[in-house]
């Protein structure tokens, strides 16, 4: 009887929609968009970022990365997506655009990081064009310096990255809050290490301080996915203002 019941349960779970089969418990999962082309310029960088996240904050995470396309049914079991690249991904078809729109408007968060290190790139043009197609009602706009993304954990005063292409972070709002965050300074590239643990790329011209700024902003974006606008609550403002007033020692 017990065996029969177990078989029934296995059958029931097997019959679940594919979208529900991703398991993570109450841990953070780094989920990255896979597409035809150079979708993963820094294959091990996510481990470094997650290690930093779990060492510095109370967040727990899974070591394994989830890789998925926009047509993957797992998309709607993935609350945060990372998309990066050095070249422009292929244009999205209607199904992918609709899925991206549905994802962003139903609570998902997309972080796009431009790994080209160029002020003008095909990747950047693809990002702008794709977001405009997915969310035609909203524009990609720079986030103000007092935006909650800059204070979800670290108080960010400078935008770091491997290549300082832009001094701002951009976002697309839906229902009054960013559902897509776009960084152009190759933040993920600043994390990349070789097998011996040495950073693969220099962060010029700011060096390690610039790298640290990239790490801080990366962590803040992840914390934004996990806490939303928590740090914009009134209870935090006196503390934050006082720390901002004191500045970096």
């Amino acid at each position: 009887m017990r065996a029969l019941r177990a078989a029934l349960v296995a059958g029931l779970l097997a019959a679940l929609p594919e979208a529900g089969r991703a398991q993570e418990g109450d841990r953070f999962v780094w989920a990255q968009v896979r597409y035809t082309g150079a979708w993963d310029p820094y294959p091990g960088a996510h481990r470094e970022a997650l290690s930093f996240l779990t060492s510095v904050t109370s967040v727990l995470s899974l070591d394994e990365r989830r890789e998925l396309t926009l047509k993957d049914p797992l998309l709607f079991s993935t609350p945060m997506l990372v998309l990066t690249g050095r070249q422009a991904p292929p244009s999205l078809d209607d199904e992918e655009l609709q899925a991206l729109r549905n994802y962003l408007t139903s609570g998902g968060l997309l972080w796009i990081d431009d790994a080209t290190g160029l002020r003008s790139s095909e990747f950047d043009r693809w990002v702008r064009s794709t977001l405009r197609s997915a969310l035609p009602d909203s524009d990609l706009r720079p986030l103000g310096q007092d935006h909650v993304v800059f204070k979800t954990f670290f108080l960010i005063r400078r935008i770091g990255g491997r290549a300082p292409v832009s001094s701002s972070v951009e976002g697309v709002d839906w229902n009054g809050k960013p559902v897509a965050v776009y960084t152009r300074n190759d933040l993920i590239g600043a994390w990349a290490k070789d097998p011996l643990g040495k950073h693969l790329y220099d962060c010029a011209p700011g060096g390690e301080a610039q790298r640290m700024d990239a790490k801080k902003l990366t962590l803040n974006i992840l914390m934004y996915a996990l806490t939303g606008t928590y740090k914009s609550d009134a209870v935090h403002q006196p503390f934050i203002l006082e720390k901002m007033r004191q500045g970096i020692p």
Partner: protein
Amino acid sequence: MSHRLLFDAGSWEWGLAAAALLVLAGAWWVSRDLPLRLRILRSVVLALLACVLLKPSLDTLEDRSAKPRLAALMDMGPSMRAEDDYGAPRLKRAARWLKENQRALESRADLSLYAASGGARRVSFEELERLAPASASLDPAAAINDLLDSGPPPARVLLLSDGAFEPADSLEPALSRLGVPLDAAGVGPREVRPGLSISAAQAPDFVFQHGRFIISAALEATELPGSIIRARLFKRDKPVGEAEFVVAKPFEVFQASFTAEAESLGRESYRITASAVVSRGPSVEAVRDLQVEVIRQKYRIMYLAGRPSFEYSHLRDHLKSDPNHELVSFVILRNPENYSPVTDNELSLIPFPAQEIFVKDLFQFDLFILENFSYTRFSLPTLYLQNVRRFVAEGGALLLIGGSNAFTKGGYQGTPLEDILPVGLWPDPDDYRPGLFAPVVSAPANPLITLGESPEASSELWRQLPPLDGWVRLASLRPGSSVLLRHPTEKTPAGEPLPVVALREFGKGKVLLVGTDSTWRWKLAGGRDWRLASFYGRFWNRAVEYLTGSLDLKKVKFSPLPDRMPVREPATLTLRVFDEHFRPLPGTEIDLRTFWTPPDGRQRAVASFEREPGLFQIELTDLAEGTHRMRAAARRRGQLWGEDEAEFRWEKPKGEAPLDRKRLKSLAERTGGRYADLDRFDAKTLLASLAPARRERVALSRRAAWASPLWLFALAGVLIFEWLLRRRGGYL
């Protein structure tokens, strides 16, 4: 009998007539060549025209004896409703006195009756018997002015009153204008005893929870000069306010105001007591009960999360997006074992305000959410959890959301918090299991579960949901708890299905346990299937409404009725209709029906009108003594939205106000009149003070001769005759 001719013409009509005579004189001279008969005829036409312009009238006169005019002014103020030791309302007694003395008064005086509340209006003896006290008190100055403006000036005025009015500054000029004596007949009890009553106890119909409001009452002290009145406000036998007043006059009214705070949702009962110690005799006391309906303005929610999570970010975002929620949240961003790569000034962290959350502020909130929070990690004192237990016992709501640190691993086993949970905790700290599962509905009829338009639609919605991820193992279900969702396969050690969502009432509060922190999956599922788009929001809205008691509250409510309805008519009742968020629901969105069952038991529909959106007023008249029942039912979108019933008792007024002899006597003496209690007031003495009747000629009738069409025919006839003469004489 004789007659008199007079002309009613005004000045311009006299001018026109004079002009006609001038024309007559001129025409006589201009037409001097015409035959005399023609000139006479034309002159006759003009003379007739001038005569008509002067409006001649004929009076029929008679010589008769003219009696002095006596005006009887009847006080119609609310206190005249009172029954004294004569067994009849004061107004009825006064009316009866007038009726009994009508013949005697009319034999010597031209008697005019006036009913006065505020100002005065003339009434007949037939109306006198039907008069009822009004809600406004007598204004003597306005009444005297109305009396003077309504006809010839009286020779004397008789005021029948209990003196329950306040003389205004305008009284003196009015008495000067009157210029004749005013006699006052006092209507009231024979004997005045010390007394204390509470009238006009007032409180808002509805107040917001946690809000402060004013309850006021008028204290009427009779024959208690020198005493101290002590008024107190009680809420469920607990004193919440006190006031003292020193009585200086034989009759004095004090306004007592108390500030109260609405604590719990629903109906709160208050009692006002007043007492005064009398130097000789027993103390006097008065009591009034009243009720206040407490409604929610906003749900005040405290949300404490043990670590950042998608469950936290989505639920916080949802709660925050509802303007009915006032959310304060804290999430533990860093644990003691985490390191900091930067100085503290570069972190946005604030100290964990544990003392404020668990001790200082907790009781100000309606709902406390604990998500995946480890109690032992911060070595918090047990007192904090005792406070949470007390918070629930006193009516607060607790929502526990799962996760790996939520229950046994979080250190809650054996604590005061475990006692109030709907489940017993797993004995081993390793109580969290990751993994997908599709929860099974255990209580399909529970309002937290019926989230579709129908039970079938709800079941379909639950079947369509994506699986949840991770659950907490639990030892047992406590008696009196309900399981709403259960794990499809897992069991408790006793072999019962493992609860995933369970609830329990503890004390006056409620506890909801959600043994997973992955309901955010329901939100994202809305992007995959539009039918699920609002499911996440509906589930959590319903959960908050249930926990905070709003789900149990009626959406259609009569305003609380006082223990005694005010004696005036119409009796006014108010009714409020709310939507699901307890915002006013306008009448355009509902079909509202109200019914009244008087003491005779025959129910009848009564109309209501919308005073403002969501606020309806019902007015009842012809109230009979006894218990009246009201019922209201509102339908929305074709379905019953809510209903409410109320009842009140209506009694005939009892005499409470004294007879203010001093005031009436002062008023009479200022005009040269006299004062006496009504039972000693002698109509013959009053009549003896009137001047004797005098002979005068009065017009019995007036005939307006100028208005007769005969004038027109006469004019036309003369003109036609004049034309015929001219034709015959060849003057055309």
